């Protein structure tokens, strides 16, 4: 029986690997997800047949409650809110792993067994990582949902406080590994880990949440992996490692796209206060502003157009209007593409999902590295709700706080149109010299109503 269960676990692991492999193309991705889900079903079914699982009452309640909440959330969440949803799910995954590790420790100590080092160490690590993931994710959720401020929360002596908590947590880890049946020490460790999760995320600004979510995604995998070591269960180890490496790769991509180190993202707020105060919008030079009719005439005579969408586009719910615009221009023989910066949106790949929801075919979405060489031969770049990712200062001005960040080089195209509510600087509070270039025309207004006005002007041409 146990051999059969182990083989079912192996099959589940194979399903997960194939499932992720099929995510390498949008064409096969949906079936990949189904294969992964099948693997999960298989693993769960096999576990229910295990001889140690005899009392199904609690399981039924847990599964029923969990399924109801999960299915409801999955159906109802708006695509703009995906980052929050993934944050919460990361947290729950971390918490589940921490609970499983704790349960095993409690079980062993109640049975009067002293866990070996090979068990005690992963119990402590799994609980530590899982608990940090839980509270860290809840704070990330609160920031993204704007329940709490998106600004970094800093207070005097914060570094000292974090340092002390980190040090005492380390001490508790050693103590707990050395004397795992001493449960009071273990519960103190749980409490400290939960506290550290909160303290680590509150000083990180809202704009950096994509990095935080990716990192917490990785943590939830590592926690599952540690739990696998506790139970000696290979499918847990394999799945946990897959998720852990996925999170690390995404974290790395996000950091590179912002030209910042992970260390700087996590501890950056402590060094703030000097150098990052570029705000105010007190810039020299005049901007040229245009009407929707002007924009329509220019677009109509263009041969190539690149749309640069930012999160502002999603906030204005302008995705559908933009898709109509791209179809109308396409029907007139104009080549339209979308340039997607890796940090457009609030989590890795978020903008692609928002445009896919608006029925923009995925072939039209081009990644930054691929499209940057096209800007010099592009007639019109239409920037909608994006700011810092188009700032030429990132390339040219060594003084700029975003110097070195890879950008979409819209300033190299023949005409640039920027739709923006006002001249207020963006999230990072940095002025954008793009707006003062001779070939730039500002379209002041809400992205959705602006695109709709351009559409109606275009139809009259």
């Amino acid at each position, binding site marked *: 029986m146990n051999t059969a269960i182990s083989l079912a676990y192996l099959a589940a692991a194979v399903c997960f690997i194939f499932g992720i492999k099929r995510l390498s193309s949008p064409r096969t991705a949906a079936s990949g997800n189904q294969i992964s889900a099948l693997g999960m079903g298989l693993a769960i079914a096999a576990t229910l047949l295990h001889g140690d699982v005899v009392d199904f009452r609690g399981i039924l309640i847990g599964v029923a409650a969990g399924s109801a909440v999960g299915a409801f959330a999955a159906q109802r969440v708006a695509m703009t809110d995906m980052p929050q949803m993934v944050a919460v799910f990361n947290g729950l995954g971390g918490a589940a792993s921490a609970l499983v590790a704790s349960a095993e420790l409690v079980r062993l100590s109640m049975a009067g067994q002293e866990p070996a080092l090979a068990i005690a160490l992963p119990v402590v690590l799994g609980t530590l990582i899982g608990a940090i993931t839980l509270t860290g994710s809840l704070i990330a959720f609160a920031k993204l949902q704007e329940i709490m401020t998106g600004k970094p929360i800093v207070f005097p002596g914060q570094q000292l406080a974090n340092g002390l908590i980190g040090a005492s947590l380390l001490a508790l880890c050693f103590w707990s590994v050395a004397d795992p049946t001493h449960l009071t020490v273990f519960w103190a460790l749980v409490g400290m880990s939960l506290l550290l999760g909160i303290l680590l995320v509150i000083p990180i600004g809202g704009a950096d949440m994509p990095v935080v979510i990716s990192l917490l995604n990785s943590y939830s995998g590592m926690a599952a992996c540690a739990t696998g070591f506790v139970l000696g269960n290979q499918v847990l180890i394999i799945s946990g490692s897959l998720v*852990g490496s996925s999170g690390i790769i995404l974290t790395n991509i996000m950091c590179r796209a912002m030209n910042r180190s992970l260390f700087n993202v996590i501890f950056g707020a402590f060094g703030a206060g000097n150098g990052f105060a570029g705000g105010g919008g007190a810039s020299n030079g005049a901007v040229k502003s245009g009407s929707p009719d002007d924009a329509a005439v220019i677009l109509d005579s263009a041969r190539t157009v690149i749309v640069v969408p930012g999160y502002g586009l999603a906030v204005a719910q302008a995705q559908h209007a933009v898709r109509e615009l791209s179809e109308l221009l396409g029907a007139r023989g104009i080549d339209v593409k979308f340039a997607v910066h890796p940090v457009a949106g609030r989590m890795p790949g978020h903008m692609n999902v928002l445009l896919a929801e608006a029925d923009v075919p995925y072939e039209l979405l081009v990644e930054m590295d691929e499209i940057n060489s096209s800007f010099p031969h592009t007639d019109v770049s239409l920037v909608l709700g994006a700011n810092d990712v188009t700032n030429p200062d990132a390339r040219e001005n060594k003084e700029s706080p975003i110097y070195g960040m890879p950008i979409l080089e819209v300033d190299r195209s023949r005409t640039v149109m920027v739709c923006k509510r006002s001249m207020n600087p963006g999230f990072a509070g940095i002025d954008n010299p793009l707006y003062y270039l001779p070939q730039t025309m500002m379209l002041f207004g809400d992205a959705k109503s602006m695109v709709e006005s351009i559409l109606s002007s275009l139809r009259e041409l």
Partner: protein
Amino acid sequence: MNPDFVLIVTVFALAVLVGFELISKVPPTLHTPLMSGSNAISGIAIIGALLAAGAETRSLASALGIAAVALATVNVVGGFLVTHRMLKMFHSRRGDDS
């Protein structure tokens, strides 16, 4: 050192390598579904949760297990469903819905 431990460390090392190899092939377009989908996979902790929750004797350990079952189920069910919902939206210019 016991051979079981060496075996699971081997599995771990190989899985990490496979993970890096696989994930680096996922295009940026699919990074959000990758995150929600891999998140659902990390709900595999449900296996450990079921073992703890279904134990013969009621105890603190089985109570923790039941809580873990509920949380991991949210992760698994919600994660796979929302990933499916997103992936259904990706379609090609040639109109073949996949």
